């Protein structure tokens, strides 16, 4: 890496403790960032709203982010509009819906399925699903699944938002009847004997991108070399993370208190069984248009030329390709 030393001393990155923060965690812990000449500060954030707002306000430089959240920010949904871009995808798969064993049994025993079960609930105690964020693959997955059951979210059943690490616990405690969340939290609920898998993003939305690496467009323009180096490190990290030989080491890293703080065995089974892949890197405009279509379908945004153009400019496969081309994959 030659060139003028226009790099800021420290690059500040944020993440949410989930299996799919692996690319950032590996790039940091395995020294890929350092090898690319970067000094990175990687910190967990307590909420997606914080990730969005800190990124928009310039308090962090880049982040692990829900792909639909990046598009929502571009469109000014839920917060002031921010010109965020996603030069790299971080994972596919891992998101799933888990039903409580009680709800699963009730549905199996009711000829009218979930709709009948929901209708039979007393007033004030609706069947309640938890989802991680309004603008997320998980909310689209849940919407599709509910539709397939002939059920309308917000009418027949209640949908609330809760942070991923709380989901399994709240399903186990009986506060939630179903959850749509990323790995490893579905498996945590299933292994506790509290839940049954009902659908996975890997099957329902196989091409959908779950998380992306997001930065502000103006930051990317001002720091092209830093971004280039970040992408190179993360492309290498994604390869490392997907290699079966590294599964134990990856699980040990993610299980640690700096990331998930969960049993290593649970992380290993989530890696083996939940269909997560990290080497999905390049995200093109098709994937952004699919996100927009989902959001229009969910009545989160109205279709317009402006929205289409905004989605077109969200993914930056050009930046990814530059970093990838420049990489010696020895």
């Amino acid at each position, binding site marked *: 890496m030659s060139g003028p030393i226009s790099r800021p001393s420290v690059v500040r990155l944020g993440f949410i403790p989930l299996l799919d923060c692996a690319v950032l965690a590996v790039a940091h812990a395995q020294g890929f960032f350092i090898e690319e000449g970067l000094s990175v500060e990687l910190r967990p954030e307590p*909420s997606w709203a*914080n990730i969005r707002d800190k990124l928009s*306000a310039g308090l962090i430089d880049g982040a692990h982010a829900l792909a639909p959240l990046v598009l929502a920010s571009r469109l000014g949904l839920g917060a002031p509009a921010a010109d965020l871009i996603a030069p790299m995808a971080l994972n596919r798969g891992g998101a799933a819906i888990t039903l409580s064993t009680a709800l699963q049994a009730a549905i199996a025993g009711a000829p009218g399925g979930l709709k009948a079960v929901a209708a039979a609930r007393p007033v004030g105690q609706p069947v309640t699903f938890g989802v991680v964020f309004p603008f997320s693959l998980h909310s689209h997955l849940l919407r599709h699944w509910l539709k397939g059951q002939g059920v309308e979210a917000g009418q027949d059943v209640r949908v609330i938002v809760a942070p991923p690490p709380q989901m399994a616990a709240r399903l186990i405690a009986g506060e939630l009847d179903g959850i749509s969340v990323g790995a490893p939290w579905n498996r945590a609920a299933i292994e506790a004997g509290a839940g049954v898998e009902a659908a996975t993003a890997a099957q329902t939305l196989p091409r959908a991108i779950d998380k992306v690496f997001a930065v502000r467009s103006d930051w990317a323009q001002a720091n092209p070399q830093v971004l280039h180096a970040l992408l190179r490190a993360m492309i290498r990290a994604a390869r490392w993370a997907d290699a079966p030989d590294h599964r134990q080491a990856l699980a040990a890293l993610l299980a640690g208190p700096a990331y998930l703080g969960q049993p290593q065995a649970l992380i290993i089974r989530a890696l083996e069984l939940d269909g997560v892949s990290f080497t999905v890197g390049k995200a093109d405009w098709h994937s952004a248009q699919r996100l927009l279509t989902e959001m229009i379908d969910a009545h989160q945004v109205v279709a317009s030329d402006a929205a289409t153009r905004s989605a077109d400019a969200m993914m930056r496969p050009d930046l990814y390709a530059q970093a990838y081309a420049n990489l010696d994959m020895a």
Partner: protein
Amino acid sequence: MRVLVVDPDPTRAALVVAGLGDIDPLEVRSVLTFDEAQGDFAGFAPDVIIIACDSPDRDTLENLRVANVHNPRPVVMFVDRSTPGLAEAAIGAGVAAYVVDGLAPKRVRPVLDVAMSRFEVMQQLRADLAKAQADLAARKSIDRAKGLLMRERKLDEETAYNLLRKLAMDSGRPIGAVADDLVAYAEVLKGKRI
């Protein structure tokens, strides 16, 4: 106007609540977690929610609708578009404001201003306290290192201190850190460690 303060830090929340007491007419409640407020959220029906950015409940708020059967109104992040940079400043201070959709910005602004100033005061207090503790720890280390040098090298106190200061300047590190190292190495040499 009813204000709900959600903050996992009760000391900071108390500071915000006290500050808001000057704004009239206002009814203020504070909770550690949003869950705590869920039960009587409908009863209290806040117009403004001030939430600490380190609370994990922000995402829950983002999707909330005020439980009103006839007209459920969304809770939205408060953005005063007439003041550029305000949203950034609030996030920088570690606080976010949410309002029930439709509330006039000029009524919300003083509430957010108070919250931001109290959060900043608290941040400053915490930073000062951390610095005071670090200074105290450094002074203890320096005293130990000085004593060590005085004993082992038969130096007087001032010369011992000057030697430490030179070591710190030469290595470009804080004098407290250099003193810590010196004491630690001396213990290794004496066989007290490892």
